């Protein structure tokens, strides 16, 4: 009995058991599943045909079509512009809130976390249908014309979830670090603002940067809220694609999607790099990029 038990591990190491092989096969199959539609889109962006669905020979025409279509260009520009503004905004509010939660704990933190949780679990479609009449109310009934501006509306819609994400990430980072550095700075007669600028903020910086890039990506991705709050003239890219669904998808949509995918990949690689240089393990990066 004892002998068999000690022998078993050596046998397993020499030859992988059937369950290990099955797990590996399953893992590889799932990764193929995960990448199948992305591969389809990338391949389709070199489709010479008129419709995305029907393959008609290799061509770079879809990429050239982008240049010829001002509507496509303006949609992408609106998306990037909105993404940057929404990301700056969400990072600012989220960082302040995250620092407050980590460094000034109290009963209020539970209420605030509860609110952030509500923001993140409310279905996007509910946010979307709620924001539409609300922005109309603010813009027309209260006369706040700024809420009639397409970019402002998109930024408002995209900032909600992003604020929650940034707050989580910044709080998680600072909670894991002792407040002693800030206390030492205070003992050395640094003014509160100086301590904040020279100690707290640099400590939180990797999380702030990661939060910024995640907010930007989230905003680029947002379709549902954007479809409801957008004003014609400032249609962001996903909404353009969404409305093109009805009239038939053309290959240049795949081409732009491929380019946007590259942009997202660069942003994600930057996040991973920032977190890795800040000393996070693979697991911690997975948690941060999984949305907290």
């Amino acid at each position, binding site marked *: 009995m004892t002998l068999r038990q000690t022998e078993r591990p050596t046998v397993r190491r020499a030859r992988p058991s059937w369950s290990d092989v099955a797990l590996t096969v399953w893992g590889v199959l*799932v990764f193929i*599943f*995960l*990448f199948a*539609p992305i591969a*389809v889109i990338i391949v389709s962006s070199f489709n010479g045909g008129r419709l995305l669905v029907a393959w008609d020979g290799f061509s770079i025409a879809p990429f050239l079509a982008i240049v010829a279509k001002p509507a496509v260009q303006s949609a992408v520009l609106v998306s990037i512009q909105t993404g940057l503004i929404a990301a700056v905004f969400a990072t600012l509010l989220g960082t302040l809130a995250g620092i407050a939660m980590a460094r000034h704990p109290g009963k209020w933190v539970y209420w605030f976390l509860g609110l952030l949780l509500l923001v993140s679990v409310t279905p996007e479609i509910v946010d979307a249908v709620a924001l539409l009449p609300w922005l109309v109310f603010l813009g027309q009934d209260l006369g706040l014309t700024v809420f009639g501006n397409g970019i402002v509306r998109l930024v408002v819609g995209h900032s909600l979830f992003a604020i929650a994400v940034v707050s989580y990430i910044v709080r998680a980072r600072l909670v894991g670090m002792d407040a002693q550095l800030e206390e030492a700075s205070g003992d050395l007669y640094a003014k*509160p603002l100086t301590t904040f600028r020279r100690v707290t903020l640099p400590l939180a910086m990797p999380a702030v940067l990661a939060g910024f890039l995640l907010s930007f990506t989230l905003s680029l991705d947002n379709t549902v809220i954007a479809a409801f709050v957008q004003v014609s003239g400032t249609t962001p890219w996903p909404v353009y694609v969404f409305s093109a669904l009805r009239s038939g998808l053309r290959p240049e949509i795949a081409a732009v*999607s491929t380019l946007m995918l590259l942009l997202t*990949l660069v942003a*994600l690689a930057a996040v991973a790099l920032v977190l890795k240089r800040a000393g996070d393990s693979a697991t911690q990066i997975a948690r941060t990029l999984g949305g907290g």
Partner: protein
Amino acid sequence: MRRSPGFALAIPAWVWLALFFVAPVGMVVWFSFGYKPGIFGTHANDVLSLERYAEALSPTFFSTFQNTLWVGIAGTTLCLLIGMPVAYWMAVKVRPERRGILIALVLVPFWTNFLVRTIGWQVLLAPEGWVSTLLQAVGVTQGPLEILYTRTAVLIGVVYNYLPLMILPLFVAFDRVGGPLREASKDLGAGRWRTFFRVTLPLAGPGVVAGVLLVFIPLMGDYITATVLGGAKGNMVGQLVASQFQAAQNWALGSAMAVLLILVITATIAVGAAIVWLILLPIRRRNRLVLGDAPPPSDPPAAAERELQGVGA
């Protein structure tokens, strides 16, 4: 810093979220008690009633709620069944230096545009699409694949779209359990299945719960997947809400549907939690470790066994 009121830094976020989340959602709840006045009005609240809720649950719309719940439960279950082996494989079996690249490979689809990924499936599942061609070539099916714009296509789409949200928390949970505990379990004579079900899985429980919630909640509110892949047959509540606000211009009914959707999600989670709690009750009782309770002196092996089970729990 210390002297300033603690939550002052969070005030901008409080105000912003109150103004653009609490207030609008509150307004939707308020609308849901109203009605649609005439053809041109969208909502009126001078007479308050629960009639919109009754209307939303009438047979016309009730089947969509049923359909959504079916897709939600089936989709979450499939994500768990597909994702758990992958997460376990990534956390335990794969060599540590390869883990980073695998996580990156899960994250790339997750952060790729949701709509674009779903369109990828539309292309794949089309009757003249790649999957159909492949299945016919292999001889699995005779005619073209008639799966697009059905509930099955929606199910494939949601499982695909939300699978990374299941794999990531499960991976983190399995990774936390760590090798030493598994080895200890095996040293104490448990086989690898017993080790998984008695040590690894119970310790990874919070990750399983997180994964299930992260998948189920957004899945129930899904709008894009059902619109792109579902057509008329694969309707979900998200589309119903959207159509009431856009095409039908009936904000009162749309609001009632939105509130009902949130209630259905909450109720399902509560029922699910109760069921899991009841199922685990006997297991918990059996595995309970009683400290400070002197074992009966006449029966030392039984006491040792009890302690062993306590460690395994």
